[in-house]
Structure formats: C-alpha cells, structure tokens
C-alpha cells in the first residue's frame, strides 16, 4: 500500500469501507489488458479501487487525490487500455454504483444516464418507449457515457449523425469542481441541449476521441434518442450462440451490394447519402463475414480457408433500409437504392452473403456479436477512426494497407488488403466517413510491441501523404500535431490548465510535458 494512510482514511470516510479496497487481490483485477503493452513497457497494479455512488463522492475523491497527490483513472466499463495504470501511485475510479438511467424524456427525446449504464440497458428501455439510440461496434455491453465521450461511432451513424448524441453534461473537473454544460448550466434548467443556453465545452470532454479520463470525470450526460418504429422489444429468436434478430420484413431490409472496384463503391455510397436513404451504410471487410457469422474458431478458419467471402464479398457495401413512417417508405427507398446500384455498376451479392449477413443486420441496431472479432485469433485491433470524407477513407485504407504489408507477410497479424479488411462507415448521409483497418492476432508482449511500431508507421505514412491520421493518443500527439496546425500545443495547454497537478489519468489526453521537457 503506497497511498498514505491518511489518504486511505479520507477516501474511506467519503465512501465507507465497503466501497474502497487496496488489497492486492482486488487491485490485481484492474491491472491487465494486453494492449497496454503496445505503448508502455510496464503495467501496474493500482494502489486502490474506489466505487463512488454519486457525483459528490467523485468530487471528494478527486479533491483527496489533489490533496495527497496521487493519480486517478476515471473509468466506464473498461474496454480500453487507457483504463489500466502504467504508473505507480494511481487509483481506479470504478463507477459500478453509478448505474442509473436517471430519466428518459420521451417528448424531448433524450435520456440522462450515469457512467455504468450500458447501451443494451438504455436501448432496451428506449425502444419500449418508441425511441432508440445508436449503439457502437465496441458492443452493446459498453458504457454509453464512456463510449460517447470516446467516439460514439455506431452502426446507424449514417442516419443518426456523428458526434451529435451528447446533450447537456455534468463534469467533475480535475480540481474537483462540478461544471454543468449546455442547457444544464442555466439555473433551473434541464438536460435537453448541449450547445446552450449555458456554456458549451463539449469539445473539451469529447473532441476527436475523448480525453480518456485525462480531464476529470464526466458523471452524467444526456444523450439524444431517435424515433423508433420497430418492435418494442428486441426481436431475438433462436438458441445461443445462433441467435437471430427477426425484424418485420415489411419495415426492415438489408441489402448487400458489390461493385467492380473501390471507386465505384465510394460513388455509390455518396449517391445513397445524397438521396438521404438508408438507416446504416458501410463498406464491409470481406473477412467480417466469416468472423461474425460463424460460431467457433474451427468454423471460422474453414470459412477463411475456403476463400469464398474473400472472393464473393469483396468491394461490398451493406445498406440497411428501414421504413420508419410506413411500409411505403421502405418501398420508396428500395426503388431509389436499385436506381443507384444500376447507375454505379453494382450488383446484389450472392445468397450466401445474405445468409451470413443476417446476424449483421441485427447488430447494426443493437450490437450483439461485434466482439466476436476477438475470436479469430486471440484478439483484434485496428488503426483508423479517421473522420473526414469518404474519399479520405479510401486513401486512409490504402495507406494502412501499405504500412501493414510487412506484418501480414510475417504472419504476425491476420487480415488482408484494404478490400478484405477495411471498414468504411458513412456518417450523416455520407457527409462524413471513417475508415478502420482491422486485423487480428494472438496476444503476447512481442507482438504488442510490433503493433505499436505498426501504429506509428501508419501515422507517419498518413502524415507523409497529407492524410488525417485519425485516433491518436498519448505521446503520438507530438508526432501528429506539427502536421495538423500544432493542435498538440493547444491540447497540452488545456491539460496543464485544467489538471495542473497532472493527476487525472496521465498521460491522457496528452503527456503534460514533451519528452524533451
């Protein structure tokens, strides 16, 4: 126990003995995630775990951290490596007790939630009320709040919009003060809007890819909900693991369309966006089909080795059409889609693609199978989250492919060329897009180190070709920043201004000092 006794006592006074532990057996469970090894030579056990039950308790914890000068990591459901300590003298704030859906305002279509509410929970409650929320590829088991702050990219962002879900928020700053953002900032006001009345500092809590707990802890947010015309409970049928989503076919229809080349595919995605049709629109990597639609490693490898999907599902988009207001709306969207396919030289994919793609259509509405991606080898990883245009996504994927080549050739990672392994997602009816270049591998420290090299290499290639590099964290900001208007300098100033003691999950969002400093 390296936290001072007085610090422990102070925490215990706030939380009660039941909700704090510094026992090594307890902290051990917060000390491992393979991908920490990518950028950091060491993992640490946290000094203690605290389970606050309210915003006030979070404030007290952060104030105690500042008084006794120990670091703290605010977490959600802990899917990201940024939640594992890499430095001594760090505690974890686990929000398991902050698990309430505080309010669902049906009329104004928003929900107010605490950090340990998952997408599954919120989606289940929302659809009961004729509303929905877009759920992320990370899986519906993740924290809505943490995911929204990180990126909030989802299966249906084509329809629901990028970076628009966060409304008002309650934010405990790294000094322990509470700041209420958006409409909540006005006395007596509610959670209905993020941009005002009241201050809008959404860029600080959300920005490109969140601050990963590096700027205090957001303790409540209101998230935008959208109209839902589907069933009031998720229409799940079948037996595990072969569960199926049975949405009414007169209102929900998935199309799989392939194109003669990548450029035509991107043209079609633009046209679909311009026509403002579709609920979800993605370019799918061909390797996703065997990964998502098989139920064991053996089945998956048989499918991969058959090469069927690499051949038949290449240059492929998936379009989910939904007749929101009526069955006729679906009929209209189908007509428009078919016209676009004709004009852009597309063709419908074979039946087997449709068959295997069944699981994917349900996943787009509530992600239930996405974490199957881990199954292929041991885990999967990706470079990307580079938000820009569809054309940009195409370029990004090609650069990632170039950087990936040597790792594929050695067999250290599994994947393929851009067609096989790139996910290109349309946001806001194709106004925005992002590309994720996906690959799989087994876990060990040596490979993690090589993945770290690959990430830096991809970043440098992107900067070489004047391509926005996407998700950058920690020290990599100092590589990306000079090529992107020196944003890293502003980011560092924000970190130092808000967290002068550098205690809120360093080195996120950026190390307080540069290496040379």
């Amino acid at each position: 126990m390296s936290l001072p006794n007085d610090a422990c006592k102070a925490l215990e006074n706030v939380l009660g003995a039941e909700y704090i532990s510094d026992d090594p057996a307890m902290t051990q469970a917060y000390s491992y995630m393979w991908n920490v090894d990518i950028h950091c030579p060491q993992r640490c056990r946290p000094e203690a775990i605290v389970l606050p039950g309210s915003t006030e308790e979070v404030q007290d914890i952060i104030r105690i951290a500042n008084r006794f000068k120990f670091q703290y990591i605010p977490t959600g459901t802990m899917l990201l490596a940024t939640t594992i300590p890499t430095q001594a003298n760090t505690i974890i704030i686990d929000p398991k007790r902050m698990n309430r859906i505080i309010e669902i305002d049906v009329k104004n279509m928003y929900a107010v939630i605490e950090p340990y509410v998952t997408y599954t929970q919120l989606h289940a409650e929302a659809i009961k009320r004729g509303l929905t929320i877009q759920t992320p590829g990370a899986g519906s088991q993740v924290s809505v709040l943490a995911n929204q702050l990180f990126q909030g990219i989802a299966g249906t962002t084509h329809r629901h919009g990028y970076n628009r879900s966060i409304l008002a928020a309650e934010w405990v700053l790294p000094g322990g003060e509470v700041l209420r953002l958006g409409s909540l900032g006005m006395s007596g006001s509610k959670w209905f809007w993020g941009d005002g009345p009241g201050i809008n500092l959404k860029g600080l809590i959300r920005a490109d890819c969140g601050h990963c707990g590096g700027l205090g802890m957001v303790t409540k947010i209101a998230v935008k909900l959208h109209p839902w015309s589907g069933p009031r409970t998720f229409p799940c049928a079948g037996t595990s693991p072969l569960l199926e989503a049975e949405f009414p076919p007169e209102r929900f229809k998935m199309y799989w369309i392939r194109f003669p080349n990548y450029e035509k595919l991107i043209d079609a995605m633009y046209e679909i966006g311009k026509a403002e049709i579709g609920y979800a629109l993605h370019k799918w990597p061909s390797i996703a089909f065997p990964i998502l639609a098989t139920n064991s490693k053996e089945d998956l490898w048989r499918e991969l080795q058959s090469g069927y999907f690499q051949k038949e599902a290449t240059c492929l988009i998936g379009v989910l059409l939904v007749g929101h207001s009526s069955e006729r709306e679906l009929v209209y969207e189908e007509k428009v889609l078919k016209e676009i396919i004709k004009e852009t030289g597309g063709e419908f994919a074979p039946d087997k693609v449709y068959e295997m793609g069944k699981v994917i259509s349900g996943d787009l509405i509530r992600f239930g199978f996405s974490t199957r991606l881990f199954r292929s080898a041991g885990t999967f990883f990706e470079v990307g989250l580079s938000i820009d245009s569809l054309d940009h996504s195409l370029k990004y994927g090609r650069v990632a492919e170039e950087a990936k080549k040597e790792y594929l050739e050695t067999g250290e990672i599994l994947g393929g060329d851009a067609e096989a392994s790139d996910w290109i997602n349309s946001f806001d009816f194709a106004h925005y897009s992002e590309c994720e270049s996906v690959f799989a591998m087994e876990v060990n420290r040596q490979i993690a180190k090589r993945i770290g090299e690959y990430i830096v290499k991809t970043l440098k290639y992107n900067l070489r070709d004047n391509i926005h590099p996407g998700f950058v964290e920690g020290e990599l900001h100092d590589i990306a920043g000079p090529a992107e208007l020196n944003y890293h300098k502003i980011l560092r100033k924000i970190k130092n201004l808000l967290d002068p003691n550098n205690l809120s999950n360093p080195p996120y969002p950026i190390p307080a000092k540069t290496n040379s400093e």
Partner: protein
Amino acid sequence: MSLEKYRWDLINCERCNNCLWDHPWRVKDAKYAKICPSNERYLFAAYSCQGRFDIARGLMDGEIKYSDRVLDIIYRCSLCGACDVTCKVYRDMEPLEILQELRVKCVEDGQGPLPAHKPIIDSVKSYDNVWMQPRGRRNAWAKGLNIKDLNKEKAEVLYYVGCTYAYEPRLQKVPQNTANLLKKAGVDFGILGNKEFCCGSPILKIGDRKLYESYAQKNIEAFNRLGVKKVVTSCAGCYGLFKAHYPAVGKMGFEVLHITEYIEQLIEEGKITFSKELPLAVTWHDPCHIGRLGEPYVPWEGKRAKYGLYDPPKKLNRGTNGVYEPPRNVLRSIPGIDLIEMERIKEFSWCCASGGGVKSAFPDFAIWSARERINEAKSTGADALVTSCPWCEANFMDANEEEQSGEIKLYDLVDLVLQVI
C-alpha cells in the same frame, strides 16, 4: 488438467465484460441485463470471471500470493456457468473450467477450500453425505413407502435421491412424492437406501478433485453392478455431475435422467395422466445444474495451436443442451397451469447462488441472489415459482422467509404433478 493449460485463455481475455451481461439481443429490461450474481453483489472487478482470470494468472506468475482475500474472491462464486455461456457467444474459451481448476489449485496448494467447507469434506469422508448425518438415517425419508431395495432386489430404474433430498427435513416430501408418482406410473424402480453415497458434486465444486473422483468411481461401479437401465435423480446437482463429469471418470452402462425428463417421458407414454385442473400462473426457474451445467460430457484432450486454434478441434459446451424443455412441457401439459417466463431463462438463467460451496460459506450472498430471482419471478405476475433442485428450493425457502414484500409460493415440479393425477 492444470491451470497452466489455460494460459492462452488467461492472456487473451479481452476484458470485453460480456461475462457480466446477458446477451444484448435478449435483454428486454435494464433491470435484468446482468447475469453474474457474484459481480452484481460485490461490484469490484475481482468478483467477476475476468477478475478471477487475473487472479489465476497472478498466482501462476507470482504477481500475487494466496491470502484470505484471494480465497474469498475465488470461492465467492457459485460456479453457475453464466459467464461461460455468455463468453462463448464471442470467444472460444473455457471460463468455467478455469474457475473450477483455480479451486483445484487452491486445494492442491494446501490453501483451499475455505474453513466453512472443511466440514463438508469431513462429512463426506466420515458419513458419505454432505450434511454430517449418520449413514443409517439416509433412508429415513422412505420409511413406510415400501420401495424396492436394490441392494437386495433388481429393478429397471435406480432412483438416486442425493444427500440433500434425503436429509433436509423441509425437502423430504420431494423424494416421497417422487416415489409415489413413480409407483402410480407403474415404474419398476428401487433405491440404494443407506448404501447410497454422495455423488461428490459439492466436494468437486470446492476443489477436492481427488476425493470427488474416488466417489465418482465408487458410484459408477455400484450403478453398473446393479444392472439398471436408467438412473433417475431429482437432484439437479447430482444430475449435472452424472452427465457432465462422471463419464470422464468411468464407463457408465446406464442412462441418466433428471426426474423432469423422466416425467415428460412418462406423460408421453401415457403412464402419467392428469385428472384434475390446477388453475395457477407459474414461472419456471432453470436450476444451473440441469441447465447449462447439465450438458453431456464431451471428451477432448489437446492443446492450443497457432492463433489459439484447438488441436484437435474441440466441441465446446455452450449451455444450450441442458434440460430446458422437459420441465416446461410438463408444466404446459398440466390442465389449468399458465406458464409465464422470466426474462433470464435457460442457458441465460440467473443463478440462485446456492451452489459451488456458496451456501455453506456465504449464506447471506446465496439468500441475496435467491431474493433477486424471487423478485424477477414476481415481476412476471406469476403466483408461484417452480423448480426442481434441492439447493435452489432450500435457498428460495430461506430467501422467501426473509422477504419483506411478500412471499411467492414455491413448488417442486413433482409436487405439482402429484396434485393433479
């Protein structure tokens, strides 16, 4: 099989947390989204499958040492297998085998089981039952029922009662009713009486594999010697062990059936017919040991090859082949019964947390989890909760007694069936 064999799983766990939650597509209500009683009650990640993986890895690699807290974390889990089912939707791993193997390691290292478990082991060694009761009273429940003694006579069916139904006074009516039911159905059956031994389930679950194997061996030999065609048991714990573990110990020349399966067969064969109506809205609680832990044993010996592929290929038990439909079919066939399902059912059922040594060592946790289940049952609008497991039933009785918001009626399935024939 040592813990080391699972190293691949331990380092490749992605911490996706799916082991804590029901499958996202199944969830209808935020309240019933969770599936791991241990983590829901104790909240810290250590009390989850992922956390216990970290403990296992830490012990193997010397990152942590045994302590009271380490043992508390390892044993404050009912080994219900919910994490195993949900993990296997996404991953090819063996969470439950790892949690079981971790306990075996504790015992082999001289650290486990917990002091509260030691009387169980002493009792089995001294009296062949888990309840510190004399061998001579094992047969007390059958007094006056005139049941064949298979130590002296032959029969087609062995009715294996199990320690808890045999000795727990609140539950003895279940084997009594079962015997009466089998008689009415004209089944040629008998019991082993005072010569019936513990199946070994509790001792395996707390990690004493050697002692368990000696009992498994003894029982298999005894059952084979009887020449019975079927072994029928009312106890879910015994059934789960006979189906999923005994075949690894020895060859079994008989079919194993849970009483709910057997009643379904007898109804289908017309040997049980209903003459009365029972107007009752009921909900069925799937005991883990006839459900996701009651799948037939699948032998496999091999290793993880490149990318974690099983060599040779391995068929994973996913909890889907448990005894789910038979009790439901029996309930549906009873005139007047309205079966209403809870949200977390079958392989995704919420565990009452009586098993895995929890009831003996952490009775407050077991009652808490049972109360959660009772509240879920009440939320369906059902008048009664029906199940078929002595551990679940006793635990529900305890929880029901302490329930502030009103009790729910509790039935063993056999009791209901006997009321209407």
